[in-house]
């Protein structure tokens, strides 16, 4: 075999190998990756089997996060992590240029949406929903933030946000 033929074989072989590798990786899904998208927090999410106080409280928190995130124009997931610690909250407000007032208003709006969702899901009696809305509308801003921020107190002790309405809540649970 002369050198010209060997040169052609070498270059041809290189082209075939390169195209084959790229083709195989493409077929195997190399170009198909897109990160799993988070849902739009402004879209309504149906509550999932709210059974028992703990489950209701969980769905309530998630609805409140959705409502607040929708107001702030961020994802529910970003807000959930942002409210995990005071430092995280500070980084979040700096990054998105959000004042504490704006954050608190959004959190309060989120809590009100959670009450609406709970009522719609049949998890909260309408008789209780009205006074609860009133409580949340007048809740101090810091307390509103704390309500979402401190999930443990929310889940362990509904007294933390329902105040005197707790006994009603338990009474009216379906």
């Amino acid at each position: 075999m002369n050198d010209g033929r060997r040169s052609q074989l070498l270059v041809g072989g290189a082209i075939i190998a390169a195209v084959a590798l790229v083709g195989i990786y493409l077929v195997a899904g190399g170009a198909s990756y897109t990160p799993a998208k988070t849902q739009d927090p402004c879209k309504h999410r149906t509550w999932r089997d709210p059974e028992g106080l703990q489950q209701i409280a969980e769905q309530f928190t998630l609805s409140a996060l959705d409502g607040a995130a929708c107001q702030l124009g961020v994802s529910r997931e970003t807000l959930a992590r942002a409210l995990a610690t005071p430092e995280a909250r500070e980084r979040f407000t700096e990054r998105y240029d959000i004042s504490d007032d704006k954050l608190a208003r959004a959190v309060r709006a989120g809590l009100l949406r959670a009450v609406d969702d709970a009522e719609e899901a049949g998890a909260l009696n309408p008789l209780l929903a009205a006074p609860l809305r009133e409580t949340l509308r007048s809740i101090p801003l810091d307390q509103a933030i704390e309500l979402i921020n401190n999930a443990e107190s929310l889940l362990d002790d509904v007294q933390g946000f329902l105040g005197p309405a707790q006994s009603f809540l338990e009474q009216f649970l379906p």
Partner: protein
Amino acid sequence: MGAEAPRPRVAALALAVGLVLADSSIVVLALPEIYRELDTSVAGVSWVLVSFNLVMALAAVPAAHLARRVGPGRSAAVGLAVFAGAGLACGIADQLSTLLAARCVQALGGALAVTAVLELLPATVGSERRAAAIWATAGATGAALGPAVGGLLTELVSWQSIFLIQVPIALVAAVPIFAVARQEAATGVLSTELRQTGRPHLLANLALALVSAAIAGALFLLVLLLIEGWRLTPIGAAIVVSVMPLAALLGSRLDGLVRSARARAAAGAILVSGGLGGLALLPKAEVALTLPPQVMIGIGLALVLSALTETALSGRAPQAIHGGWTISARHAGVVIGILAVTPIFTHDIAEQRHDAIDAGTAVILDSRVPPLLKLDLAQKIESRLDQEKGKVPTIGPAFEPLPDDPEERDEVVQLRDELQEQLNRGATHAFSPSFGLAALIGLLSLIPIGLARRIEL
């Protein structure tokens, strides 16, 4: 002198070239460690590579001229001494600025040594062609072995040891060269024949620069993907990237089968670009999937670098000056490659990381684990993100301790794996555009290689 060439001197000269050219890539695997220890940014740490290569690119040709003026023996001896001294300074540097300054000085010494050696080798081995072959092989071997050696040293000792170990090696390589330097000083006559310089081979050097940019981008990105993206240890990453030099050894065997340098250069550039294309399209975050592209890049780089260096030096004199041009082109290419890909992937990795973390948090919030546990996990993930300051985090510790209840434990383990998968795929995907760009740069080298078929400069 050729047949009876003193082996220790030839070995010392080859060692000097290999050592200096290994230095352009030896720190690649140590970069993540330097990045953490000196508390800098990805862009900042990339200058540990860039500074060395930039100074080499700028200094190689002037250094070659200097070697011809003052004598290659003296030039090589001084170069190696400066290289060793600056290596010591790199090893004890505790600030990025000090390290970068020492790296620049190291490159100056390296440029002097490596170009002077090309002037010394023909007289030592008796043939310019053989000298060029030894010089190119020593350089390619050093550059190929550099990352793996650097990774091993970083893992087993420290990143500083990479530089400190170079000091005695440089001095050992310098011993036989000191004899030549003394001879030059005694006679006061240059041992090399002064000949017409001639113009550098523009197309071969341009192609060398482009291919080197692609290869540097590949190596730099692959190491960062393995260590920062997939969180391999430096030694693990060293083992993975050692596939490339091993494949390069295989590629160098093909050199003898085809005489046409243009065909070898074209085939090599295509293989390098194809391999980079594969890395840009990794279907999963799995180490095994990096191996076929690495084999392709390794074979390709052996073919293309030797063919282009051979073309650039062929029939041109003096060798040191033209060798200086090839060194300059290769290192300029490395600088271009790293500077081109760094801003793209640092931006992409930050974005992908955010999306992946959001997606992972969504998985947790929507999961069936107890509410208190899921909110606790979201908090711990935030803490991990805070601790790892902008890097792709290892998320496992956020899930410790695992719940005692077997059912709950299975749920949590599944969540952890899902989140880590999201992060790994996000990190992998963040590197894709940069690998794609490096592949494109590699393909661009086919233009000067193709033009060289018709235009002989």
